[in-house]
């Protein structure tokens, strides 16, 4: 067992505290919240792609399922925000389990296409089932998160809530990275037949990981919905799924910090180059291609290699 390295979580906590104390502008705090949500989604995908070898190009669908479950329950039925989170998690978990049962027996290209097709179907359903989702014009009137007399309607408050959750998840991920489960998943990734012959139920393990990550992504979707208060299908299109793949790959597949690094870098691109909005996808595609071709392991992988060289 390797020693637990609390530094990534601590550094993140420190940076977030510094941002929270110094930045007054609500807009920038909002950007920080959105980037944290991207980072969590990218990390979820990283667990699938980098640890388990499941290529999923439909993560935006689970993100959207979570956002819409919370949004509809809150806006149409007036539920308390907190109660919608378990529903979103379980909803996505069950859908992912049902979808994954046949899909995760597939490999490589087939798996990529199947998850992509699933994402497109969910996207079309979001657009067409306008009696539930509000259709292409979106869903409005989503409430605020409120519990124990605390109210998270303001951006500052939401930033604090999100930061606490984010650091907590980072710490859990560090525990996961040092756990037995992590080795099990990497074993499945490196050779499915070998892990089968060692008595691992690979399909069942992959299924549970896939469903759990789907639930996790859905919770991020709920957090997103309660932050922006307005959701429309555009946010959950294939483009977002591909952006997540880019974030995880550029950041570093198979490194716990990879998703976070990728999300911060690629999430800041549209903010820094607001004038060059047209070139946003060009930057995404270019970075993705360069990383896959020349930088295996992405940024996190390169950093850890450099560190090992020094030591």
């Amino acid at each position: 067992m390797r020693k637990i390295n609390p530094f990534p979580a601590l550094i993140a906590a420190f940076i977030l505290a510094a941002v929270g104390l110094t930045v007054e502008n609500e807009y920038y705090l909002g950007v920080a919240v959105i980037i944290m949500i991207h980072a969590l989604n990218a990390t979820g995908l990283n667990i699938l792609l980098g640890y388990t070898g499941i290529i999923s190009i439909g993560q935006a669908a689970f993100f959207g399922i979570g956002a819409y479950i919370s949004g509809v329950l809150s806006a149409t039925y007036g539920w308390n925000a907190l109660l919608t989170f378990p529903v979103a998690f379980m909803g996505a978990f069950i859908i992912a389990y049902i979808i994954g049962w046949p899909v995760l027996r597939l490999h490589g290209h087939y798996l990529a296409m199947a998850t992509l097709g699933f994402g497109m179907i969910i996207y079309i359903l979001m657009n067409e089932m306008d009696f539930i989702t509000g259709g292409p014009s979106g869903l409005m009137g989503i409430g605020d998160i409120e519990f124990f007399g605390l109210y998270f309607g303001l951006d500052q408050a939401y930033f604090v809530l999100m930061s606490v959750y984010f650091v907590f998840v980072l710490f859990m991920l560090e525990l996961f990275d040092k756990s037995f489960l992590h080795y099990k998943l990497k074993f499945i990734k490196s050779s499915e037949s070998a892990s089968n012959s060692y008595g691992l139920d690979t399909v069942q393990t992959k299924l549970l990981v896939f469903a759990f990550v789907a639930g996790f992504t859905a919770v991020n979707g709920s957090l997103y919905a309660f932050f922006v208060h307005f959701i429309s299908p555009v946010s959950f299109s294939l483009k977002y799924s591909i952006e997540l793949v880019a974030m995880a790959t550029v950041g570093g597949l198979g490194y716990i910090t990879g998703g976070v690094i990728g999300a911060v870098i690629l999430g800041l691109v549209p903010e820094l180059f607001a004038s060059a909005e047209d070139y946003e996808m060009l930057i995404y595609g270019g970075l993705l291609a360069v990383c896959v071709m020349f930088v295996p392991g992405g940024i996190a992988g390169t950093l850890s290699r450099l560190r090992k060289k020094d030591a």
Partner: protein
Amino acid sequence: MQFLYSGLTGGSIYALVALGYNIIYNTTGLINFAQGEFVMLGGMLIYTLFAVFGMPFIIAFPLAVVTALIVGLLFERVFINLVRVKSDINLITVTIAASILLRDFAMHIWGRDTVTVGEFMPVKSIELPGGVISNQSIMVIAVGACIAFILHLFLKRSKYGRAMRACFDDMTAAGICGINAVMVRVMSFGVAAAVGAAAGVLISPITFVTYDDGLMIGLKGFAAAILGGLGSFWGAVAGGILLGLLESFAATIMPSGYKDAIAFVVILLILFVKPAGLFGKRMAKRV
């Protein structure tokens, strides 16, 4: 009956796109996620040559296809060849990245708006039992069938086609027999791009062209390819036509918004029930 005619038109296009997937799959065992972008490229090139420069269609068509072929060759040299670790996940990701780049370049060159190509010949409607069909649709079906037939001859009879099939069976053995495997891979990307572009040219007067068309048509072509069985030549043709018919039939009984979902439901159903496709052979798994 009307749905039969429109289904055949759309189906011929899907069949051509599916053949493009098959050519690459049969030589490299790879799915090119950017295949649809070549369809868009074909449409955009014919728009430039035919509508903007005013070339006669007989010259513009081959020129567009040859240009796409060259782009296909470059595509392989730049994206596939340079990937250091050629694992499945890396190759999938790099073709996705390449499709983003192609789409974005197209957006910068031709703009965000839909472009109208205009008719290649005067449009006439022909009365058939149970409906009408335009001579445009007939041209799509006829030229599509011709391309499929030429491709079939190329793959089965010509030296290059045989080399391609040998590479799929066993890359190493083919290399020992003196086949330049890299050359074959490059060429398969070129041919696939050319076939995709031809499909794009044919469909452009009917559906018009937008820079982000490639994604949808690429996915539908893939649905057609696995419906017929990935790697099976006539399977791809049958799958394409079947998908076209299914889509246009669905449009008669469902709200049109769901029409695009058909292809994805087909992808999922086939992958669930019979991943080898309707006409494909079950392949042994290599451990």
